[in-house]
């Protein structure tokens, strides 16, 4: 196989098969990948525009019975710092977020077996009723399987109930790497790849929109990555329910997996993943760059390697923070980062409906009527921080 043949296929908008994908991932130079990824990117989205969402990622509980070795966030029932918030408490937080201009809340647990299905449906119903400007983007596949276990209902029945309550999109986290060999090692209690896929398939069938994610940089091989993308692409062919694909690298801080994997993957690897995903996932409209998980400068670079979305402002985030991996931004900075990378920033919601573009010097109105954001705009913007675990020997 040769790079020339693969390029010809991509430039004539043909799909790559698994074998070609693996060859490309292992032999394609970074800039060959980028060139092909840009072709696909501008095929889907012709204009040099980049979307972002003003969102928040709170958690209603950190109690979890799955014990993934890559996670620094979870606690067990009875741990001193374990918590579960009531629906009232969460609605209060959403209201505050709404007042600050947040459009989307990505809400996830813990998988806490003490919570009944009604807890979740009430959370959705009240959010729709009491915080109408916020789009609920709630509950990962693991939590939905958890709800099925607690309620005795099937997964499709749970999804129906959630839909009735007002949910129409769910986050794509928890996929990690869709290879049972890898899953067994890093998240043995989280179920198989098929568990994640079947929840997604049922959701798409019911008209839900979801994202798809991949966490790499731990125990997976290149073959596993290609398998992950191949399975995802096949499911997308069925219902076109995925809005975007979001890869991120494993962050070792404070996790049991840290003992084996000391450092997180380099920016080069991240850009390879973004570009490769864009090339391979020819049926995905969006590839999301994560300034948050990879650093602002890496996020900016990703926009030239196939990504067309800059993710959320993440007004609140706890999972990466638990791994000592903290990046913060402001809406204003996010808009500037996109613009400085050479693109027009466009605000969107979870379903990729856009609200409007921002010309040079323009920013979303919300920064003007929000106390907290006012402060953060004035406060010095924090540079990307590299935790000391990145230094090689931990």
């Amino acid at each position, binding site marked *: 196989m*040769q*790079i020339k043949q693969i390029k010809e296929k991509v430039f004539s908008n043909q799909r790559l098969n698994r074998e070609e994908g693996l060859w490309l991932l*292992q*032999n*394609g*130079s*970074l*800039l060959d990948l*980028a*060139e092909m990824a*840009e072709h696909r990117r*501008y095929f889907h989205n012709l204009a*040099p525009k980049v979307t972002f969402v003003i969102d928040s990622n709170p958690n209603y509980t950190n109690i979890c019975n799955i014990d993934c070795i890559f996670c620094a966030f979870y606690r067990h029932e009875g741990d001193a710092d374990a918590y579960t918030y009531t629906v009232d408490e969460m609605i209060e937080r959403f209201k505050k977020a709404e007042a600050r201009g947040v459009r989307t809340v990505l809400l996830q647990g813990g998988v806490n077996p003490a919570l009944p299905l009604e807890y979740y449906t009430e959370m959705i119903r009240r959010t729709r009723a009491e915080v109408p400007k916020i789009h609920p983007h709630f509950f990962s596949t693991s939590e939905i399987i958890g709800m099925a276990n607690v309620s005795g209902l099937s997964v499709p029945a749970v999804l129906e109930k959630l839909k009735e309550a007002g949910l129409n999109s769910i986050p794509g986290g928890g996929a990690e790497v869709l290879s049972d060999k890898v899953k067994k090692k890093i998240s043995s209690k989280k179920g198989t790849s098929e568990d994640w896929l079947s929840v997604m398939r049922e959701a798409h069938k019911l008209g839900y929109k979801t994202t798809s994610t991949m966490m790499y940089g731990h125990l997976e091989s290149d073959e596993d990555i290609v398998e992950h993308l191949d399975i995802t692409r096949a499911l997308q062919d069925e219902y076109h329910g995925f809005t975007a694909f979001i890869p991120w690298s494993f962050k070792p801080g404070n996790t049991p997996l840290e003992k084996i994997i000391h*450092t997180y*993957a*380099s*920016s*080069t*690897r991240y*850009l390879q993943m973004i570009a490769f995903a864009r090339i391979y996932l020819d049926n995905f409209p969006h590839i999301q760059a994560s300034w948050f998980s*990879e*650093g*602002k*400068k*890496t996020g*900016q*670079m990703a926009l*030239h*390697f196939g990504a067309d979305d800059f993710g959320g402002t993440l007004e609140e985030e706890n999972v990466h923070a638990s791994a000592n991996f903290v990046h913060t931004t402001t809406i204003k*900075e996010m808009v*500037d*980062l996109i613009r*400085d*990378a*050479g693109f027009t920033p466009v605000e969107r919601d979870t379903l990729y409906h856009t609200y409007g573009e921002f010309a040079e010097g323009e920013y979303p109105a919300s920064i003007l009527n929000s106390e907290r954001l006012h402060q953060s705009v004035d406060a*010095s*913007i924090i*540079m*990307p*921080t*590299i935790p*000391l675990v*990145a*230094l*090689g*020997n931990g």
Partner: protein
Amino acid sequence: MLSSKELSFRDPGLMPIWNKVRNGIRLSKEDGLVLYSTHDLIGLGRMANEVSRAKSGDTVYFVLNQKFEPTNICVLSCKFCDFAVKKGSPEAYEQSIEEMLDILNPDIREVHITMGLHPDWEWQHYVDMVRRIKEAYPLIDVKAFTAVEIVFFAKKFKKTHEEVLSELKAVGLRTMPGGGAEVFSERVRKLIFNQKIGAKTWFEVHRKAHKLGIQSNVTMLYGHVETFEERIEHMIKLREVQDETGGFMTFIPLAFQPGDTGIKTKNNFTSAIDDLKTIAISRLMLDNIAHIKAYWVMLTAEVAAVALNFGADDMDGIVGHERIAHDAGATSPMQLAKEKIISIIHEAGKVPIERDVWYNPLHIYPAEGTSIVSKMPYLNSVPFYSNFEPELAEIKLSPLVPRVFGQFAKEGKVDAGPMSLMDYVASQDEFEMLDYGVAVSGKAYSVLLYSHHDWKHLSGKTIGLTAESSTSVELLRVLLEKKYGVTGVTFERLHLTSGQNDYTKFDAVLLIGDEALRRWKVGLASFLNVYDLAEEWYEWKKMPFVFAVWAVRNSIPAAHKEAIRNALEGSITRSKGHYDELGREHAKRLGLTREDLAMYLNAFTYRLGEQERSAMEEFLKEQAVLA
């Protein structure tokens, strides 16, 4: 022609620029501005990466270095610097020479010293600093003092710049860092660097240093108040001076860190896109500078890693202390472990080479599963590489002079290349020969003995030998002993970096490769006799002389061997008939015309046949019975 690669671009405006670049035509200021304004970052990167590949192969250099800033007390108060303080300030510090020596260890190969302009320190203190480091660690080379410091010393100690520089050189100063260049624009200097020396003085000092054999680097501090135009003008000014002196080794763009400096920038750091563009554009504009450094302390490790595919071929080293950048808010890790640097370079698809202060390779660290091909950095090897496009990504190119190639091959680190005949003979068990090599029947123009005496009168004399090739040295010995019956000659190895050599102390000097070609027309010092060793052999034996043969390690995968052979065959075939084009880059450097190039390259045979094989045997027979 620099590259035969056909590139296509999303931004069609890049095509005319690529056509210039690949044909070795220098870019104009307007071209530079087009490059800054393009949205096609990847297209820009691909051009820069091709240029970098033509110069450095797939190699990225790093050096184990220790940075010192022995004091932050400074008589200046530059607006952009929040490192310097006044004497008596609570943050003021002074590091003694003993404290500096305590920090050093024998693994370090380069020491970098810059500091505040101290109001009280004596001249002897600076001289001792360099001298004592060199005495305590003879393998450590000192890169020290920016032009700003040199000017300060000259004024304070009432010496000329030359005196300052040569006194420091005498105690061990090897190269100078490129700091203090900031942006070569009077407008910008007046705005924020008004206490620093201007471009004119900065270049004056570096010109003098180059004349004394002290090579140097050059920086550009960007991302503050300067315009894109001023950045391009900076590069062009530098390019002009480099045409004159050839003494700049490395260009280092420095991303400005506003920190507490009080200089307002839009965001508090440059955008990654601006960083990558600046690296790539400098690679394209600066056609006469060998290396571009991605200085990770200022760029962040994330951007520096990607910059290795955007034209940078140097990743700096393990930085011990970097107070200046960190006081202004850079948050890169204080020390990137060597393993981390190596893994970043591997992930970029490149080959890490640990270097000394002059970029001589010390160690090579190939990634698992790759096969390293040595790229002989000589003009006569251009036909091997000008179209060398292996179909496998695992085949990597690294520029290595024959001596280093031989050494790395012996260590099992490098797997193929045109091997000096003597090295091949010594490693026949591990390498097989391909039907390619460098042979010549008659003049080779680039293996020359410069002598005060004719052959017969070299008995008992001292000959300085190039450290680069054992084969030409053996050929010299064969000619002396067997052809001319000369004995009792003392041989002495020359320094790898020509600026470090005093040729006049020898009775004769053997130069090879580009070092010889550079002197083809101009001669060397007062040596009156010039002997072409290949011609001497040919006249004696009526046989070609084989300087090098392509050798491939037996143990690499068959697919790799095949890919190397195919790439080589393709390159030699496609190069034939284009010699005057292909060597243009080298010709500029060596002061040769297109006609010289064609004549020179046409003298060589690159495919080895029966005649060459028997000539090799004949030479080895003669060589085997030397005293």
